[in-house]
Structures are given as C-alpha cells and as structure tokens.
C-alpha cells in the first residue's frame, strides 16, 4: 500500500475490474448517470400523458413498444413507469450514483490515503451495483412488465400479480435487484467508514476533515444501519410471494377467490420500509450538502461559516432521521399518540436544517464569489433546500398531513427538497471535481447555460404541484380527467409537462459538455479552483497510490481562505492556505 508501483495493467483490470478508487468512482458516475437519464426519460413520457391525457405522441410510440397503443400508454404501464422512475432516481442515481462517485473519489484523496481500506470490496461494491442496475432494466422487458406498485412497493399490491400485472416477474426481479443493490451499498458504506476512521494522514484530525468527508461518513453510517432493514422487508415479501407465508397478507379476496393468507399486516411492511425509507432521504441529501458546503466555501474564498455547527447539524439530522419514519404513515390508522410523537420528532429536523441554510447564506456574505457552474449549482441547492424544505412543515405535522397526504403537494415537496437538492449537489460536484475525475476541465459557458435552464424548468415542473396538491389532486393518477372536480387543473398540468420536456432538453446540454470534456476538454491544472484540500496536491494524471512519494501531512483545517495578518495582508501572500502548509509562529489555528 505504501509504495506506488507502475505495473502495466491490461485493459480488463484497468477499466473493468479495477480496484482503484478513482476508476471505481468513474464507474459509479457513468452507471449512475446512465440510469438517471433513463429515469428522466421515463418521467418525460408519463408527464406527456398527464399533460395531454389520451393524446397520441410519437415519442411514446417510439420508446414504449408494446406498452402503448397508437402512441397512448396503457394505465398499468403508466404505473410501471412511475414505479421505475422513482426506484431508479432514488436508489440508482441519487444513492449509488451520488455517494458511490464522490465518496469513492474524495475520501482517499481528501483524507490523504493511498486508496480505500479494501480495494477488492470496493470493486465488488461497484459490480453488485452494476448487476442490480442490469437486473432492474431487464425487469422492464419481462412478461407483465416492470414492478408497478410505486417505488414504495406496499403489499398486497406488490405481492399479488392478480392485483396488477407488474407484480409478477417484474416485481420478483425488482426485489432481487434491490437485494443485490443493498449488498453493494453495504460493502461501499463499510469501506467508507473504515477508511475515514483508520486511514487519515498525519495531522488529519477529525476536526480538520473537510465537510464532504463528514457528510460521507454520516451517510455511510446511516446506510449501514438502515439498509439491512429494507433487505429484511424485501426478503419477507419474497417469502409471502413465493413460499405462501403471511407476514404482510391477511383477509384478501381478489380475482374471485379468497386467499389462504391470514394473520399478516401490510402495515408491518410500511414500518420496515420507512425505517429505511426516511433515513434514505438523508442518504441522498447529506452528500449533496457536504459537496456544496465545500464548494461554496472554496468559491466564496471564505471559511465555511460555523464548521462545528455544520457537523453538529448533520449529526442531528442523521440521528433524527431514524425516529421520524412514522410521518409517512399518519393516515394508516396508527395510534394517534404515536402520530403525535412522530410529528414532534419530524418538526425538530427543521432546526438543524435552518442552521445549515443560515450558515450557507452567512458564508456567502462578504465573500468574494467566483462563479463557476459548480458555484451556481451550489447556490441553486440552497434555494431548492429552502423551497422544498419549508413545505415539510405542512407534511410533517400530522394534523395537516391528513388532507395533503399522497397528493401532488407531497410530490412537489420531495422532488424539490430531495430530488433537486441532491442532483444539484451531484452536478456541482461533477463540475468542481471534473479535473480530478478526468484530468480535464468542463466548459463553463455550457455549464452556466445548463444551470439556468435546469433551475428554471425544475421550478416550472415542481412548484405548481403544490397548488395541485392543495386542490386535492392525488398522486399516481393516470389521468385527472375522470373527476369533474379537477377539470380546472388541465392548464396547470400542461404547464408542468411543458417544463418537463424543457428540463429533459436542458440535460442534453450537460450530456454533451460531459462527454466532450471527458475526451477533448482542455487539460486541467493541478489546482484550478485554488482549493486548500489534499486532492489538489495530487498529480493531475491518475496514479495508483495517489501521491508520488510520501503522503503529505496536514497542519490546519481545510477552510483557511482569505486569512489576513494584522495589516490586512493575506497570510502567505494568497487568499488560500493549503492544509499542508505548517502553522506560522503566531498564527491562530481557530481551535483546529
């Protein structure tokens, strides 16, 4: 481990079965983005149906094969698309794609380690992820179609093929794919935790870690504690489906006959599912918050405001995320007292969240902000985190949830606070660390255009959904046209769907920029953004072991930006001081 040796690798071991964290990071990124793009196209397809129900579209005809007739998708296939869109976006893009890419890339580079604790497990983690992605995609093509019970796959709908065709082979593949996905996630998370605790370079105390690393650490811990619960929930569902057990099923009459299942409860599944499902929100969100904290500080040329408070609030959010799952179940008939407890714990999350927002804003205050596309997306994240976060106060309050539960209000809320924030964090990370990923730079002008078109169309899509929700429009409806009550929602739905198409086109700008820059972009310098952290001390080209010679030692925290002496002149002559610069004689280390 401690020496780097350049042995010639053949293609297979360099690009495919690589144990190098930087290559694995790229594998996660590209697989994640590919899945994400598929998920995005799915959403555009069903938005066409929702915007113009019953109208025929060539895009639908072209892409959906037997799932449509004359360019109009079938109702059960609409649900299959909704289910797969949710599953792919939450797990494949925003869990594996986001965490897998940046934890792998940045943990060794920023803590000063030659690689992950176990390169082999790391490789396995990617390949399990790849396998589960392939299985999930295959499930689109099996008889009966893909899983159609919503990404939350509540039984009995997910357990009974009589209830919906997608609960046949499609659901079986979904469950196996997710089981493999969970193995991948656990292997990754364990590796991240062990690496962060054991392999930091000399001088890299915990309070000198960049916030990215703190975020990845909390994310990994939450994942290790919650994903196994989803695995058990999935296994019990497999038993109910295949071996006739009754964990979740009872008293069911369907397809003209009474089923043998007795004594189970679907509510048990909901508890198990959301015990993962809610922490999952923060598994998706925390890496994005870590990434943007780092970027905002670097690009504003200022220390992140309230470093310890940022860590504390992430810890609080992480802890609270385990005791709020019941707010997804206020209307399941749970004991009202339990509902009251979950209301209390849920609304508490607003406090650390507010602290984070104010700390972001204060970091920008009196900064000297350099506007790269990464900066734009980071500021965008603060906006989406606020916009989507505040509506949580409506949904998290059981007394108010009653009437907005499962309406478009929820769809608007979580897409903005979790979906947009996480994908903005991911985009910011890609623009910022592209030089570390590919040794080249992305084009800023295209990046800026990508940001402005994306944020405009994203708010065009998700903001009006709050109004739909307050009008009582339920989510997961194939069309709203069966209710005269919703007739006056037609133009809002068209509005939303129009922006959904624009949002898709906007992502093509990114795709072009990404592919072009990876192959043809200008060569990156070692430290283009003048960052202080260790990854900017590594050579531009990827080498095994990350540093030629010794791993540098660390002498200060990562946020010594614009530090001045008593005459108001920059210390060491520039507006940033690398973590590898030893403390000066009379320099104040700020307690780090």
């Amino acid at each position, binding site marked *: 481990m401690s020496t780097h040796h350049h042995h010639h690798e053949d293609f297979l071991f360099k690009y495919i079965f690589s144990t190098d964290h930087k290559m694995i990071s790229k594998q996660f990124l590209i697989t994640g983005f590919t899945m994400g793009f598929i998920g995005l196209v799915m959403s555009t397809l069903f938005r066409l149906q929702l915007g113009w129900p019953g109208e025929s579209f060539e895009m639908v005809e072209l892409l959906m094969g037997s799932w449509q007739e004359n360019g109009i998708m079938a109702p059960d296939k609409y*649900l299959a698309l909704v289910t797969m869109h949710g599953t792919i976006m939450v797990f494949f893009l925003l869990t594996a794609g986001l965490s897998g890419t940046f934890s792998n890339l940045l943990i060794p580079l920023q803590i000063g380690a030659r690689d992950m604790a176990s390169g082999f497990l790391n490789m396995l983690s990617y390949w399990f992820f790849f396998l589960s992605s392939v299985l999930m995609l295959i499930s689109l093509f099996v008889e009966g179609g893909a899983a159609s019970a919503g990404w939350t796959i509540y039984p*009995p*709908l997910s357990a*009974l093929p009589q209830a919906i065709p997608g609960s046949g082979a499609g659901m079986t593949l979904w469950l196996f794919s997710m089981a493999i996905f969970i193995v991948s996630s656990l292997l990754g998370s364990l590796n991240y935790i062990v690496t962060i605790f054991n392999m930091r370079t000399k001088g890299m105390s915990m309070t000198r870690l960049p916030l990215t690393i703190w975020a990845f650490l909390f994310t990994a811990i939450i994942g290790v504690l919650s994903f196994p619960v989803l695995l058990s929930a999935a296994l019990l569902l497999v038993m109910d489906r295949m071996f006739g057990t009754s964990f979740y099923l009872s*008293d069911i009459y*369907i397809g003209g006959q009474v089923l043998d299942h007795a004594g*189970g*409860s679907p*509510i048990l599944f909901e508890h198990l599912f959301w015990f993962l499902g809610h922490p999952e929100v923060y598994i998706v969100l925390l890496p994005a918050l870590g990434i943007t904290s780092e970027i905002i500080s670097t690009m504003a040329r*200022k*220390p*992140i405001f*309230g470093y310890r408070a940022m860590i504390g609030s992430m810890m609080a959010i992480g802890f609270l995320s385990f005791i709020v799952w019941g707010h997804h179940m206020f*209307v*399941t008939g749970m004991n*009202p007292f339990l509902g*009251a407890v979950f*209301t*209390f714990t849920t*609304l508490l999350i607003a406090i650390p969240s*507010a*602290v984070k*927002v*104010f700390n*972001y*804003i*204060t970091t*920008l205050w*009196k*900064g000297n*902000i*350099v*506007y790269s596309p990464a900066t734009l997306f980071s*500021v965008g994240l603060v*906006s989406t985190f*606020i916009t989507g976060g*505040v*509506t949580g*106060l409506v949904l998290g*309050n059981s*007394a108010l949830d*009653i*009437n907005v539960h*499962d*309406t478009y209000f929820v769809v608007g809320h979580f897409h903005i606070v979790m979906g947009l924030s996480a994908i903005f964090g991911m985009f910011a990370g890609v623009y910022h660390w592209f030089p570390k990923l590919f040794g080249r730079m992305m*084009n800023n002008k295209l990046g800026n255009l990508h940001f*402005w078109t994306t944020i405009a169309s994203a*708010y065009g899509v998700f903001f*009006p959904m709050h*109004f739909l929700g307050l009008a*009582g429009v*339920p989510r*997961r409806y*194939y069309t709203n046209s*069966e209710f*005269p009550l919703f007739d006056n929602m037609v133009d809002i739905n068209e509005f939303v769907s129009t922006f959904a198409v624009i949002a898709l086109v906007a992502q093509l700008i990114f795709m072009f920029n990404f592919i072009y820059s990876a192959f*043809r972009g200008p060569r990156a310098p070692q430290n283009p953004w003048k960052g202080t952290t260790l990854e900017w001390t590594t050579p531009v080209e990827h080498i095994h072991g990350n540093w030629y010679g010794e791993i540098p030692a660390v002498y200060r925290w990562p946020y010594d*930006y614009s530090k001045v002496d008593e005459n*108001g002149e920059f210390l060491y002559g520039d507006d940033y001081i690398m973590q590898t610069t030893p403390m000066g004689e009379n320099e104040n280390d*700020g307690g780090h």
Partner: protein
Amino acid sequence: MTVVIVIAVLLVIVTGVQLLKIAELRAKSKGENIWEVKEKDGKFQASLMIVFLIAYMAYFFWQIYAWGDRVLPEPASEHGVPYDFLLNLTLGIISSVFVLTHIFLLYFAYKYAYSAKRKAYHFAHSNKLELIWTIVPSLALTVLILFGLNNWNKIMKPVPAETEHVLLELTGQQFTWTARYAGEDKKLGRSHVTLIEGANATGVDATDEFAKDDKIVKGEFHLPVNVPVQFVFRSIDIIHSAYMPHFRSQMNCVPGVKTQFNFVPTKTTAEMREITGNKDFNYILLCNKICGAAHYNMQMDIVVESKEDYEKWLAEQKSFVE
C-alpha cells in the same frame, strides 16, 4: 422523418464541437485559460442571480394570483375550520421564510461576486449568530407543534358512543367503494372476506343479528348535516385510501385491519354549490393509495343534506336481509 431528426442531431453535435474548439483556440491565442472564470463573466452570472430573485418571486406571487382560487374551497366539516386555520398559518410562516431567505441568499450571491479589488472577510463562526438561528426556528416550531398536536388529538378522538351519530362503514376494493350504514340497532354486523358471495360483495355475515338491518349502498352515499359521522374503513384486497378532500379527511383502508375517522359535515351539497358557484358540484370520496391500473378512477359521490332528507333517503334503501 426519423432520418431527418438523426441528421439534425448529428449536425448540432458537430457544430457544438467545432464551436467549443474555436472558443478554446481563441482563448489560447490570447494567452488565457478558457476554464478560468473572468471577473466580467462572474459579474454577469451574479447579475443573473438578481434576475433570478425577481423572476422567482414574481413567479411565486403570480401562481398565487392565477391558481390560488383553484385550491379546495372552504372546509365542509367542523374540524376543517381549525384545519384550514393551521394550514394558512403554516403557509403564511413558510412563505415569509421562503421569501426572506431567498432575498438574503440571492442578494448576497449578487453583491459579493468576485472582484480583484476586494478581499473576502475571514469569518469562521459566531456563537451569537448561531444561537439566534437555532432559537428563532425553535420558537416558531413550538407554536406549530402545539397547535398541530392540539388539533390532531381532537380530530382523532372517536365519537363517544352516547353522542347521536351516524355509523358508516366504507369498504374499498379494486376499483369501487361500498358504503354500509349500521341501521336501527346502531351496530354494524360482522363481516369477513370468506363470506363474499354473489351480491354480498363485502362479506357481511348474514347470521349476525346486528347485520340484518345494515344498509348497503353503492354509487353515492348520503350524510346528514351537523351530525357526527363515525367512519369505519375496510379493504378486501389492496390498501386503498378513503380521501374526502372537502371534509379534510383521509384514512387508509387496510386488508385485515379496521381503521376509523370521524367528522361532522357542516355544509349541505346545496350550500356548497352556492359557495363554489358551481351548480354541478358534488362532494367526492376518492382512492388516494395506489391500488392498481384503474386507481385513477375509483370514486363515490357524497351527498350532504338536511337530517329530514337524509332519513327519508335512508328509509328508501333496502336493508341487508331484504
């Protein structure tokens, strides 16, 4: 057609590549790095932040102006009044927070764009500030939590048996609703899925004394105004959710489990038609938990009328044994 599109896309890509190359060569000829953010470009992006602030806020208020009257009309149930009060209070608080924080965020993002003449202010923490923005949200939350829990406990309390009320069971199944009134004995007879047969679509136990006078209706059900209604919810197949948005009422129907909710309807259908200015207005019960292909069309009408009209209507309905 497809060929034309493919060619057009290829042309766009080729043009894009050439344009990027030209831009790179131009930067190189001037001795610049194309990826470096120039002060002028940064200032432009910063000014877009102000444009964004104005546009976003204008968009927000425009939506309220254009769509604000399409949200649900005033509540038609007793608990709906405090519900709407708390909802509006919460929406008021979060809208102010939303607008204020965006003004700060985007104004700072505009104002502090990079300038070679300035230095950023090294300001790493301030216990006082951090204390303020821990305490202020906590206070606001305390208000919302207290209001919320108070309402929640009231809403979820079942109607006491001695209070005059209507006992009504709603059963969900793919993709229809069935309502069952308790009848004169004020008790619902037993039911089980194993008893489902022919016309007995929800499996009511005909041997149970309490079942004999139960009344089963489809298509629409009626409620008397100003009388508490105690709902019991069942499902015989998938999880459904009985959502009655005008009454601010929702509860899941779970196979194997009985759930409940209650409310007091306060406005008759006729009154609501006047309030909404829509002579075709009807209260509805809709399914709000994904339950299969026709989930989007699982509905039942609700008629709220005077107690006399209600009793007249109920008397016309056949009881279970008939």
